[in-house]
């Protein structure tokens, strides 16, 4: 059987007022995306959302504004090109101005996750440079340290993990 190939668009949602982050829900993003593609590409664009393994919002992090969108390999350029046309998100009558910033396109979720790890680490280091107060610097340093420790821990447990541990649901 031929394999369904998809493309995962890793985007970052940038908002002017961080206080309006609570509006972000995957349905909201999906609706906004659908509207934008419809406006930009007409009926052909609208049809992309109806096929199997069509467009789907796979992951959303409201704190950091990370969105992972999946779409078919045949249509990812369509979706990508309509991302800049989304100017606001609407949820229950409240509008928030934002824009989508696509940072990575991957073929699998794992590659997107790996890229996200690298990207977040870079962002943390940049934040450290931009910090103004000492307390903030401390917090950021702590955050960076926690990431790295996890990395070490993850590598240690990789080799010694037995299969038995995995199946104790």
């Amino acid at each position, binding site marked *: 059987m031929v394999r369904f190939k998809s493309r995962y668009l890793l985007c970052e949602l940038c908002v002017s007022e*961080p*206080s309006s*982050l*609570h509006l*972000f*829900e*995957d349905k909201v993003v999906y609706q906004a995306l659908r509207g934008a593609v419809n406006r930009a590409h007409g009926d052909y664009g609208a049809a992309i959302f109806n096929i199997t393994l069509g467009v789907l*919002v*796979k*992951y*959303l*992090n*409201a*704190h*950091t504004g*990370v969105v992972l969108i999946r779409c078919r390999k045949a249509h990812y350029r369509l979706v990508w090109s309509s991302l800049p046309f989304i100017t606001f998100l609407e949820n229950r009558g409240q509008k928030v101005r934002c824009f989508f910033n696509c940072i990575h396109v991957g073929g699998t979720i*794992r590659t997107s*996750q*790996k890229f*996200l*790890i690298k990207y*977040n*680490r870079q*962002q*943390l280091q940049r*934040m450290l440079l*931009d*910090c103004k107060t000492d*307390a*903030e610097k401390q*917090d*950021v340093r*702590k*955050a*960076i340290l*926690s*990431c790295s420790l*996890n*990395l070490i821990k*993850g*590598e240690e447990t*990789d*080799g010694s*993990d*037995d*299969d038995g541990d*995995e*199946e104790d*649901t």
Partner: protein
Amino acid sequence: MPGAKERMREKKMKNQPRSVQYSSRGQGSQASGWVRGHQAEGHRYSQDLPKHITASFFAGARAAEVSVMLKAVSKPTGSCQVFTALPKHMRRRAMSHNTHRLPLRLRDAALRLAERSQRGPEKPPQAKSRSRRARRRHTHLLLEFNRRQRRSRWLETHIWHAKRFHMQNSWSYRLPHTPTAKSYRASYRAMDTHTLLQDLSYFCCLELQGPEEQILRALSQLTSKQTGPTFAASVCLSGARVGRLLLYRAGQYPHGALGPVEFLWRPRAPECTHRQLWIWIHPALKQDVLPELQAVCQCCESVCEVSASSSAAAVDELRNRKRKCTADAAELPAKRLLGDGTRAVGDPVRWESADTHITISDLTMEIVRFRLIGPLAHLVLTDTLHAANEEALRGVCVDADLHQQQRDVFTQLRGVCSTAELPAGCVLGLTVSDPRLTLPQRRGKTVPDLQHISTESSHARDLTLRGVPAHCSQSALWDTSVRDHVTDSRLSEQELNRVRSDVLVPGSAVCVSGVCAVPLLLLHQPGRVCGQERLRWGSGWDLLLPKGWAMAFWVPLVYRGVRVGGLHMSVKHAQFMAQPHFPHDYPDCPAGERCQSEQEAELLEKFKRRPPSKRTNYVKHGCVAPFRCPWQQLVDEWAELVELGGETQSRAGPVQFTVLRSVSVLRQLSAWCSSASAVTPAAAAALHQEQQGALLWVRLRLLGKGRPELHAAVCVPTTSDLQQLTDGQSSGPQEPRHPDPQPESEGSRSVVSHCSRRTLGWVQQGDFSLSSGRGEALAFISLSGLLQMMIQHQRSLVLLRNPSSLQYRYAHVYIDS
């Protein structure tokens, strides 16, 4: 409930992150995207945004995201560590089952994996069930029986019945219905000429104790003199006779009928106004009668005492014992549940009243009741029971003189020809020895000893003329302490068998010293008392015993050649006596209504079970009530019809239908039925006015052919029908077939005028009567209809038509009073 597929998916996806968002539902992270369900260790973010968003907040969020992603990346989904630890160029196709293809360092792990997959899914360890022999040992069987009784109570003779009868669940008891052997005619013959035995322990006994006037005052509200003797009837009040009456709700006669009860007073103790009264009610009645009694006697305070130790211990055993742990059953020896063991320990059993000083106790299942029906019942009893000797009386507090007198009366009973000769309802108290000691070697049939009868005729004549003397009705069975003592001092079967095996000559009487005597009561049942034909058919004796002794008396009785009957036989017994059987034939009582609903559901289900082409087409046969009879509608329509006749003034409003039970009115009607020309229109109109909405219980006897069935229609004949009868031509007119589907008619369908002949009522019990050799039926008909018919035709002849037939048959109406 997650299916296997979802569980597998969850297992694979448990390392994948879920979306993090603020939702209004109260949880920090809601599932969406890859994984559904709960995450074991959730990244719980606080619900609200911090007031001032700082860099530290973002840093924390990003760090958390990084760790989540790391976890997702490092632990790949659904693959086992052994094979992913190998780089791609060293993986081989057959490495899952051929571990030699793996490097040495991974081979052990792979072997373990292979073994585990061979083993299969782990099941929780099951207790190994014991061998059949061990499972069927006596103690374990007892525990099993105690457990099974929790849903429907078992009578003490249950196991004996269960081997020989089809059992059914009724009124929360497990009762025998029909024998597995074909024995309808044999049972009828036994009722007619020999004896039939039944276990009626499921009847509930309510005991009232208190001063006599208070009890009588309270109970007089529940009865009416018009239906017959009440609780205060002088013969019954002395305790010499068993009485039978109908209970009504307080002060609501003639409406609000509850049902028939039997009652017995304890004979008066000298210089004491404290009396004891036993009321025997059908279990279907209990939920209606008990609150009424409590209200009338003002007994609101219940006395929650710890019930007798045996039942409490049994209930505790039930609660603490698990079904499979019978291996550790060594602490308490399993005891058979006696009495009402299914009652919860805290349920109230006694109610007391402060003002009237009356105590109501619920003695359900405390007293065993056997019924012997037939003309030779007294002989069977005198064969089986032997009065106790003096030394055994010590345990039971019975006066020696009284015992001697009772013994004499009992021996005189042998000289009586038939049970029917004795006066109705006489009571004999007796103290007997254990009947198992005199069990014959093999079963026989009691036959009357004609010589004995002829010699004892003078004594027997006293007995038949005057009945049992009043003081001989006293018995120690009335005292709770004596009953409990006797129940506890019963020899178990095992011990008895041991003693029996020690006897030198097998089959001779067994003498066991120090055994207690059993007090019991014998109540005479009169049988058929109303009407003129076959009076006293179906008379017999009722045997009352303390609990625990049922099987000890049952087996010796069966060894004397009685036939045993179940619920079916009690229905037939009532039918052949032309008496209504509770609860089926009491449509105005709440228990009767419930019974009718159940019967309707049953009949409907049976009807629906057959394929549509094989069902009886009730529409074509013009049958309006194949499953349930609409009495209210019948009564209303007849009232309207009589009004249209113009002689009576219009009544106030719809009257609730009742069954006419007033003795004087029934006597009058019975006289009119026998000579229908004596009915005058004025008298009929007066009666109709007085008894509005009345139904009448009548007996119909077919003149010729025909076998009436349940819910056959009783109809008014036309003049031409009667003419044809006198000409001797036909055996009955035919009903023209009704069209199906029915033509649309405005308003509701009339019940009375639906067919070509007007409906008077419906048959409740109908069958070919073995005693009279033709079809007989018992029916309820509308009083107004009957009166109008008798005025019109001057004859008490009706037509009867089965619901599945178009043929009318002629029948004569009798009212037994």
